[in-house]
């Protein structure tokens, strides 16, 4: 595993722990300005963590199999292999499987980079939350139908879907995305509230 893969793996495995710690600290801090500063810092970090999750997912799907070098041909092989994993969920017909398999990795890469840059973070985080909800529904459905499948989550080793994997995925991926989305909208709301002055201040300044 190279340095890039190791970094991605660390962020996806431990990033949610740091975010949860930041959430606790933000609740403990009393001063509103300090609280907002902490929330902003952790939203930036949270955007990077959730972005890393999506970049890792895209990388895991596009990466050529062992023994193959990066090339357009190896990318076709990787995406065809991912199509087999999607097909194993037995949710979609073959044509839709291909559409999802060839669209999803590029979508994940785009969304991950969007989150990392922080541009319009609340929208990117919202989209990330919705995507992860859809993913969790799909693997939960596969589990309850008794399918033994590889969850195909990303860079790390493949793992079979089960209750432990479902709970872990929800904690590592869905919770940070929700926290970043909620936090982004909260901070945006707080920012608008601080920008517009209070009505009594306007009338008192007008009377003087």
């Amino acid at each position, binding site marked *: 595993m190279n340095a890039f893969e190791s970094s991605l793996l660390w962020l996806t495995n431990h990033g949610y722990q740091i975010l949860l710690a930041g959430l606790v600290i933000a609740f403990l801090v009393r001063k509103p300005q300090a609280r907002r500063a902490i929330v902003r810092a952790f939203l930036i970090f949270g955007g990077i963590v959730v972005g890393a999750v999506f970049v890792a997912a895209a990388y895991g799907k596009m990466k050529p199999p*062992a023994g193959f070098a990066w090339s357009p041909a190896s990318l076709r092989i990787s995406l*065809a292999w991912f199509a087999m994993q999607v097909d194993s969920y*037995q949710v979609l017909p*073959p044509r839709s499987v291909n559409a999802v398999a060839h669209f999803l990795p590029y979508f994940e890469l785009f969304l991950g980079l969007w989150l990392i840059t922080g541009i319009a973070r609340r929208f990117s985080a919202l989209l990330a939350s919705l995507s992860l909800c859809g993913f969790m529904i799909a693997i939960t459905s596969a589990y309850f139908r008794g399918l*033994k499948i590889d969850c195909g989550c990303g860079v790390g080793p*493949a793992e079979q879907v089960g209750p432990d994997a479902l709970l872990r995925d929800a904690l590592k991926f869905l919770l940070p995305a929700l926290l970043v989305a909620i936090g982004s909208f909260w901070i945006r709301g707080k920012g608008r509230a601080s920008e517009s002055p209070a009505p009594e201040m306007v009338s008192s300044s007008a009377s003087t």
Partner: protein
Amino acid sequence: MGGPNSTGRGEDELNHRLQRCRAETGSAGGLAKGRRTALAVAVLTAVGFGGVLRVMARPAQSSADTAPVKSAARKTSTASSSKAVTAPPALSAPVKSYGSSSAPIKMEVFTDYQCPSCRNLFEGTLRPMIADYVASGKVYLVHHDFPLPGHMYGYQAARWLNAAARVGQFQSVEAALYDNQNSWEADGNIEKFITAAVPAADFKRIQKQMVGCEYQGPAGTKPASLRADPQATHGCTLDSYIEEDRALGMKIPVQATPTYVITYKGQKLPAGSGNVSWPILKQFFDSLLSQ
């Protein structure tokens, strides 16, 4: 009229005639005797010759039938001397594959014959693949047994399959097992489907291998096909092939069935599991072959 003188002349003549007659009779008797002798000799010769011919024309089978053959060498020499005798070939390790081993893609599938997903994979994906990509030499399909503990008759089905594979009936028996899975998994009566799938002579050879391989399920779950052979004191020799496949699967590791491992020109790809449809699998093979 004659007198006493005429009688003498008559006697001489009579004697002469008698002598002649005796001589003639004697030679005729001698002749007859010779003819009888010759005839007897001829008859005896003919009988003897015919007997010799009969003995030479008798097949050697009778000697083989009466004397039990105790060694393969004797069997071979006996068989070689007569076209009617064909000794059964010695049984080798089971061959559980489809297609040519020189194909660029090798697909190894670990399955349990009582597993519904494995049946779906075989019926929906492997069958068209065999007809298309295996037949055209693109894919070499290898089956490995991986019976799961939760399937009561999965191991027994694998035994039947290995026995059939040793006599060259792997493909027909595998198809029979999957096609009739719903039936035999209810009562464990696998034998009747094997009987219907293979020729009678091959079934006898399969059945002979199954001596000592009777179902050893929990009490009260005796399948209809169980025939305990009191003389079978040795273990099932077919289990070694199944355990060999399981050991191979544990190295991967196989965590569920079906699991497949695809190798392309010596490069082994990560193992995949679950059912995959033929169009998607075909697309993957095409992407490999276009490298």
